[in-house]
């Protein structure tokens, strides 16, 4: 029975590892090294770039695509090679004056995802962020107001807040001798009343 359980557990664990490997390719290297009971396997994640041509070093030497002002030329082309792009690359070897604007754009988009203008384009995401933040504040404030309206007052609240109770508690604190350096100058300890 327990043996079955263990087998089940190990199957689940293996499935988890498999899912993580497919879902988190960046973590796969670390996960595989930590979870593997076999020999350690280093790989360069070259398979992640698929059929896309490797053209440079990029940011970290990994075969990933990246658009950014600090790194205009990532390690791989953005699109995988296909028949149309291969034909276009062949035509590119000739005179560039014979290329039409559309072909030039296709060449650009074959290598890169976004232009600099598109990278700089304003992102309206802040509206959603602001909206959800205000909704969160509204929900929590409304919850507070609702509870404040529903909750009954403490039965002795008025008594605790009364002048007599607060004076007595202050006197008791003074009698106990706490906060000697903070004693009230206007309070007469013998008469137990305010000085005149």
């Amino acid at each position, binding site marked *: 029975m327990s043996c079955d359980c263990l087998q089940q557990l190990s199957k689940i664990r293996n499935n988890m590892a498999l899912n993580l490997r497919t879902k988190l390719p960046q973590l796969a290297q670390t996960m595989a090294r930590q979870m593997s009971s076999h020999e350690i396997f280093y790989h360069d994640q070259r398979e992640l770039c698929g059929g896309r041509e490797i053209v440079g*070093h990029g940011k970290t030497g990994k075969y990933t695509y990246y658009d950014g002002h600090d790194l*205009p030329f990532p390690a791989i082309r953005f699109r995988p090679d296909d028949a149309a792009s291969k034909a276009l690359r062949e035509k590119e070897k000739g005179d560039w004056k014979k290329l039409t*604007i559309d072909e*030039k754009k296709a060449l650009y988009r074959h290598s890169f995802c*976004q232009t*600099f203008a*598109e990278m700089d384009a304003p992102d309206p995401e802040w509206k959603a962020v602001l909206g959800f933040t205000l909704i969160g504040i509204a929900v929590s404030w409304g919850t507070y107001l609702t509870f404040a309206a529903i909750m009954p007052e403490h039965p002795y609240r008025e008594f605790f807040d009364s002048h007599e109770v607060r004076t007595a508690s202050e006197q008791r604190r003074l009698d106990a001798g706490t906060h000697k350096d903070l004693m009230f100058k206007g309070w007469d300890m013998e008469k137990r009343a305010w000085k005149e």
Partner: protein
Amino acid sequence: MLRSAALRLHGVVRSGVLQTAVRSPVAVQQRLSHGKPELSDEEFDRKYVDFFNRPNIDGWEIRTAMNDLARMDLIPEPKIIIAALKAARRLNDYAVAVRFLESVKDKCGPKAHEIYPWILQEIRPTLDELGISTPEEMGYDKPELAIQNVEDMQ
């Protein structure tokens, strides 16, 4: 006996070891500042022009050099840009040429309206000779396409 030996040892240490140890750094001259030695502007330009003019330059090197230029606090001189465009032509990579021009415009920052037209005017003969369209001619000075958020993709 021990005293005389100790005294003699003391004399040896003082005269030989200590004094050479103290004296030797004075004789050795070395740069103590951090980083690489600074290049003058002319040397810098010549270095990059020569690099882009190398006949056996490959796509890897041209991209690395352009990435380096994009990260430095400078705008490349027109002669560097011309050499880079010609290197891109030799490597038959049109996209690299346009991307580099975009990068140069980005490097101009808030003064793009002053500096970038001058750079274009300087490199115009090369652009016409090689048949390179500027990003503006290709319509890339304004956003052309919007991309789907990666988080929304299935």
